[in-house]
């Protein structure tokens, strides 16, 4: 072990240094970004050229010789036992090469339940896949699917959460169920019992269980507010749908996958098909978005595997847009009953949350982590219930739970501030112990020229303006199963290899930057080869873990390579290794600066074609931090300005100010892009998106991009971003992610601004014109 001094704190606020004891193999401390050349700059994406010229090959773009097209027959009723399946006509259809009938499912809770009697899985939602066909073209595959006949014994179903909670509701599951979590950051408590369709309560998270005594807390309160909030089901809608191309090739499997986890996809496939991991290769060079839903192989991936195995040919199976909506994941809705107690000075004395949410046939609708962790409150309890409905399974979705939770919590705190007659930022100053959010509030206050909001609804005229603020909390997760290889070749070429994937967040580019910085090169000098399980395994792209997990081993591997090159340079320059300094791609003798050799020339002296070093993510410096101090680091504060037309009910977001931090920022422009994306998604969540289920048929009414209302250019407001560097001496790069925090506070900030505009609380989203008019008593 060695002791090093690392930057610690926030520049222009409390930046200092801290001594940490770290393993000898760790590279020296990285100074703050202002002293670096590549890290912390606006570096162009390494794959931007491929994207703007249309040469980037996504899974949807893979066409292999002999490739067949897969299509699945999906249940058209929401709940049924399958009596028989007739695929004879489909089998006889010219151009059909393989047909596979599912014997068990891999998604949702307890997918293998009810499998014994008929031999077929029970249909639990409309759109559940039953049979798959592989044919010479997609048109023929679709024709064959239309020839499949399934005889059902229909069962009573329920798609509405409130209906599903009733004691007489049809049961989605007959027994208690569990579910494995994906790697996307959702929190599922194991072993809980169900009553009817209601499972729970989940009372714990990685932050622990209940604290203190609620009764005592509420007794101490001067002010108590109790409110009910509702959020809708939101679907992920990545522009590239879920899908794979599987080439089974007699057990030497290659899978092109639009996935957030090459590792997860490989491991799922190896397990399902009983193959060693070494026989399954997953390639994901470009991924058209994921937002949490693409962590697993999925039923479609299993199906493509069977069809490819059976036909002996590669099979492409991409979901269509409707399948994407109904079966590929969603953010569960929520019904949140919150009660807060506070002293006159704002001190929270008690906070209670009772929540229900439906992830359809899946689990993971908890919302309480943010209420549990963001504010100081000695007495806290949450009871979170999952409610099963006959709808497609939920999936991790950009800050699972926290987006729903923030919508309720941050409106409640806003209301508390109004009741106590204090500025909502001032109240947060009192109850929020996070240093980073304190600084974020200060910066935001300056940039917004923020004053205590005017009296709600006080604007004259029909179009009323409002301002609002809300905060975000996301724990800093790290995935230690993150490995990177760095190679230097005799011609000076540098290659970075890892199985980690880039779902559009810019992972390739941050890897190039970190390695370039360490080797004294430019990021354009680095070739980044990722998204392939032939390379060392990297983390899944979920939970905002990637940058904090993969950049430290990248730097450490580059450092190991550099150490070898320095030894080589010492020999060439006839000096000692300690006397070599690396600057701007030159290896220079410190004692005699005329003695130097360029990176390229030095590489030419290598004894072998390439040198290669691999490093895995070390433990966090100062101890692995989750749930203890980790939550401080990914805070954010967002401000919203809105206009509400009280005659039409139309809400327009005029401006968002997003104040964020993500440890040491690696690539400023990419961070801005992700924040823009989180904000826009948050606006859409607040105002537009809503999965509408038909209670009578159990089908989604809007499984497309025209009736499922999405943000387009006119829905995008002015977004200003303030990024605050924050050093925590956590790793050799001290970076963290930004994807989730960007999405958490927006909807709550918009809702608070809408309240400030019209003087009526919108406790249910999306805030549609109809809801505004209803709230104003106009309809």
């Amino acid at each position, binding site marked *: 072990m060695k002791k090093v001094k690392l930057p610690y704190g926030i520049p222009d606020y409390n930046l200092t240094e801290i001594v940490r004891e770290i393993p000898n193999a760790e590279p020296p401390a990285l100074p703050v970004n202002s002293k670096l050349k590549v890290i912390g700059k*606006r570096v*162009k*994406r390494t794959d*931007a*050229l491929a*994207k*703007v*010229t*249309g*040469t*980037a*090959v*996504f899974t*949807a*773009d893979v*066409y292999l010789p002999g490739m067949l097209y897969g299509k699945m027959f999906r249940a058209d009723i929401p709940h049924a036992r399958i009596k028989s399946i007739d695929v004879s006509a489909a089998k006889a259809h*010219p*151009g059909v090469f393989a047909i596979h009938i599912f014997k068990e499912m891999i998604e949702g809770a307890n997918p293998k339940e009810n499998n014994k009697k008929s031999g077929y899985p029970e249909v639990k939602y409309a759109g559940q896949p039953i049979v798959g066909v592989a044919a*010479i073209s*997609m*048109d*023929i595959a*679709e*024709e064959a699917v*239309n020839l499949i006949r399934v005889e059902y014994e229909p069962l009573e179903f329920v798609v509405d959460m409130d209906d599903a909670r009733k004691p007489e509701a049809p049961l989605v599951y007959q027994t208690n169920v569990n579910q494995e979590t994906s790697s996307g950051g959702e929190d599922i408590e194991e072993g809980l019992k169900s009553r009817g369709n209601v499972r729970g309560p989940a009372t714990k998270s990685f932050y622990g269980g209940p604290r203190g005594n609620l009764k005592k807390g509420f007794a101490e309160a001067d002010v108590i507010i109790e409110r009910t909030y509702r959020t809708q089901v939101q679907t*992920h*809608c*990545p*522009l*590239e749908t879920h899908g794979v191309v599987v080439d089974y090739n007699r057990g030497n499997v290659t899978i092109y996958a639009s996935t957030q986890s090459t590792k997860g996809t490989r491991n799922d496939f190896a397990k399902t098909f009983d193959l060693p991991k070494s026989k399954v290769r997953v390639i994901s060079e*470009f*991924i*058209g*978005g994921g*937002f949490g839903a693409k962590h697993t192989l999925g039923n479609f991936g299993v199906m493509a595997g069977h069809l490819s195995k059976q036909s002996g040919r590669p099979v492409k199976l991409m979901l*269509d*847009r409707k399948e994407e909506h109904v079966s590929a994941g969603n953010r569960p809705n929520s019904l949140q009953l919150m009660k807060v107690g506070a002293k006159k000075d704002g001190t929270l004395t008690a906070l209670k949350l009772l929540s229900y949410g439906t992830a359809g046939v899946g689990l993971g609708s908890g919302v309480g982590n943010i209420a549990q962790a963001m504010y100081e409150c000695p007495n806290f309890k949450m009871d979170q219930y999952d409610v099963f409905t006959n709808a497609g399974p939920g999936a991790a979705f950009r800050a699972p739970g926290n987006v729903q939770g923030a919508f309720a919590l941050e409106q409640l705190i806003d209301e508390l501030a109004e009741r106590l007659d204090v500025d909502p930022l001032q109240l947060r100053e009192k109850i929020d112990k996070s240093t980073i959010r304190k600084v974020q509030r200060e910066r935001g206050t300056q940039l917004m020229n923020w004053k205590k909001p005017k009296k709600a609804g006080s604007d004259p005229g029909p179009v009323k303006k409002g301002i609002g603020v809300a905060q975000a909390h996301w724990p800093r997760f790290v995935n230690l199963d993150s490995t990177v290889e760095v190679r230097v070749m005799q011609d000076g070429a540098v290659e970075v290899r890892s199985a980690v994937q880039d*779902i*559009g967040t*810019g992972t390739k580019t941050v890897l190039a930057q970190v390695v370039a910085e360490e080797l004294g090169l430019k990021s354009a000098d680095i070739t980044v080869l990722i998204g392939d399980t032939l390379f060392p395994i990297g983390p899944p792209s979920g939970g905002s873990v990637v940058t904090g997990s993969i950049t430290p081993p990248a730097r450490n591997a580059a450092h190991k390579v550099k150490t070898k090159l320095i030894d080589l340079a010492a020999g060439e320059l006839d000096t000692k290794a300690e006397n070599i300094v690396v600057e701007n791609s030159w290896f220079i003798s410190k004692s005699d600066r005329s003695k130097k050799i360029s990176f390229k020339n030095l590489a030419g002296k290598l004894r072998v074609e390439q040198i290669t070093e691999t490093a895995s993510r070390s433990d966090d410096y100062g101890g692995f931090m989750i749930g203890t101090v980790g939550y401080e680091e990914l805070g954010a504060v967002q401000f919203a300005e809105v206009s509400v037309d009280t005659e039409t009910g139309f809400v327009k977001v005029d401006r968002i100010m997003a104040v964020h931090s993500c440890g040491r920022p690696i690539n400023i*422009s*990419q961070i*801005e*892009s*992700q924040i*823009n*994306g*989180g*904000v*826009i*998604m948050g606006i859409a969540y607040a105002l537009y998106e809503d999965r509408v289920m038909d209670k009578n048929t159990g089908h989604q009414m809007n499984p*497309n*991009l*025209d009736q499922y209302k*999405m*943000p*387009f*250019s006119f829905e*995008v407001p002015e*977004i200003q971003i303030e990024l605050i560097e924050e050093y925590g001496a956590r790793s050799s790069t001290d970076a963290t992610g930004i994807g989730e925090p960007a999405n958490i506070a927006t909807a709550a900030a918009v809702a608070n601004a809408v309240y400030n505009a019209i003087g009526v609380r919108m406790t249910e989203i999306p805030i549609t014109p109809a809801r505004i008019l209803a709230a104003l008593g106009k309809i």
Partner: protein
Amino acid sequence: MKYKRKKPKTEKTGRISRRGFLKGAGITAAGTVLAGSGVLKLQAQTEEKDKTLGPDAVNIKIKVNGHVRQLSIEPRTTLADALRKELQLTGVKVGCNRGACSACTVWIDGIPVLSCMTLAVEVGDKEVTTIEGLAKDDRLNPVQEAFMEHDATQCGFCTSGMIMTATHLLEHNPSPTEKDVKVALSGNFCRCGTHPKVFDAILDAARKM
């Protein structure tokens, strides 16, 4: 291999088939550029030539990015599928396959159209341009340059459609306002939420052109 195929099942079951729908709709313009009137002219010409084709494959010639290509395709093949599958021009993306996201935007005689809502056989002797055809002699066009410069891509799946729409805008309106840009892009869906940088990139490209 040859396959005998029945009429598509979809027509019998009363669902709207792509062929039936497109026959009524003609070539569908992307975004709001329909006003360019060239589309309507194109539609009239297409109707004139209307005759029953298929269901078996037919040979067509199609001019794409300056080259005439001969294809054997089923008449129901969309232009998007013909470009992607037959010509490997996979820069043309299909996001929704029903004209709601504009990822599949290409130009026909310089006018943006949704290639997922256009049949390949409809194109006739018009010239198709895809994202792959924008760079001349390996030199990117200013919109492509600006997209790189302004980090106007995230996952990149909407990028081709955005650039095709934006380039057409700048060719017809060299100094657009931000509102002009938003109008032009109003049909282009981007789930990553890259819009602010896309607007910046296009306005910057206009200044540099």
